[in-house]
């Protein structure tokens, strides 16, 4: 009886090791072929539950990311340089994928770092200018601050004092009175993330974004999923 039990345990351990190594090899092989992205997939760490609003004031939660592949980025509309570049890259990527009949464009979701100024209405006009199918997402600042953590994304606000000296405020720090009127900029990470149909972070694309390389990587990852 003991012998049978030991044999069963050995078989189980061997099977587990086989699948563990298979998964590791598969990731290594896939990772080596990627040109513009890194695999970030960790099924043991699903995204925390969140409840935000899309640009039509409809609920945008984890379930919305389970309807297919998504490309997710964090932006703010007062950004004159980095964010519009990223959104333009996404619209160019969509055009590129439409020409390549073997590719399928994931849904683009742009979540604001700055819901104080970027309401769903503001996002609707701003985001859909780049493409009518892009989705802008706003909501409570605290929820957004929680959501960005597993992505490794972060930001800080920069205001200027009376002498014109920059003052940095960490995420969650209260803005001094009059900041909304005076204006502020946001320093932020600028990765774009590929989310799989299970609503999990699958890969990340650091900036600057080369759309042709992004397309190759996305095709590779979607095909091998």
């Amino acid at each position: 009886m003991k012998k049978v039990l030991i044999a069963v345990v050995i078989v189980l351990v061997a099977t587990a090791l086989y699948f563990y190594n298979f998964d590791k090899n598969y990731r290594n092989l896939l990772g080596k072929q990627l040109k513009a992205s890194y695999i970030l997939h960790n099924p043991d760490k699903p995204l925390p539950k969140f409840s935000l609003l899309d640009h039509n004031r409809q609920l945008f939660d984890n379930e919305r990311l389970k309807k297919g592949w998504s490309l997710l980025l964090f932006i703010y509309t007062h950004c004159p340089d980095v964010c519009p570049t990223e959104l333009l890259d996404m619209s160019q990527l969509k055009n590129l994928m439409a020409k390549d009949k073997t590719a399928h464009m994931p849904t683009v979701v742009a979540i604001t770092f700055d819901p104080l100024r970027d309401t769903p209405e503001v996002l609707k006009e701003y985001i859909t200018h780049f493409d009518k199918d892009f989705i802008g997402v706003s909501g409570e600042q605290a929820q957004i601050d929680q959501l960005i953590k597993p992505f490794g994304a972060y930001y800080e606000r920069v205001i200027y004092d009376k002498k014109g000296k920059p003052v940095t405020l960490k995420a969650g720090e209260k803005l001094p009175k009059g900041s909304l009127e005076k204006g502020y900029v946001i320093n932020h990470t600028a990765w774009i993330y590929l989310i799989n149909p299970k609503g999990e972070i699958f890969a990340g694309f650091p900036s600057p974004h080369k759309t042709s390389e992004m397309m190759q990587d996305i095709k590779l990852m979607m095909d091998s999923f």
Partner: protein
Amino acid sequence: MKKITLNLTLTLLFSLFATQINATTHNHGEQQNMEAVGIQNPWVRSAPPNAPALGAFMEIYNNSDKGVKLLSASASGYKRLELHRSGRKNGMMTMVRQDFVLIPAHEKLVFKPGSWHIMMIKPEKVPKEGSSVAITLVFDNGLSKTVNAMVRKAGMMKDYGVKH
């Protein structure tokens, strides 16, 4: 013999005249390029109709023997224009306001996405793609220049005229 001499003289005169024309054209061209401060390819990135801020870009040439500082920029229909530089810090894309931008002697400074740019804050009306925006630049050598910046999408390099 007289005919040959006449022909030779005419040819010589013509060559001299042609050389003179070339020299004049060349000098004129050099004069254009050798202005103390030259600005080329000014453009404004096209943006959504409710964009709260726009980015303007250009190349600034300093043809003089002394460094020149760009002190400010202005355009009518905007709350204010600021000089900025995008960069990277601790993994973040940053944007830092500049009090001035130095263009070293005999060098050019390129204002481009992801780098130096002019931030145009709170447009009364966001200009449409294909239109142009007059931007006035003030330098520390007393020079002031107004350029017509074409509104276009990023990634399309074209030359646009400079108004002095």
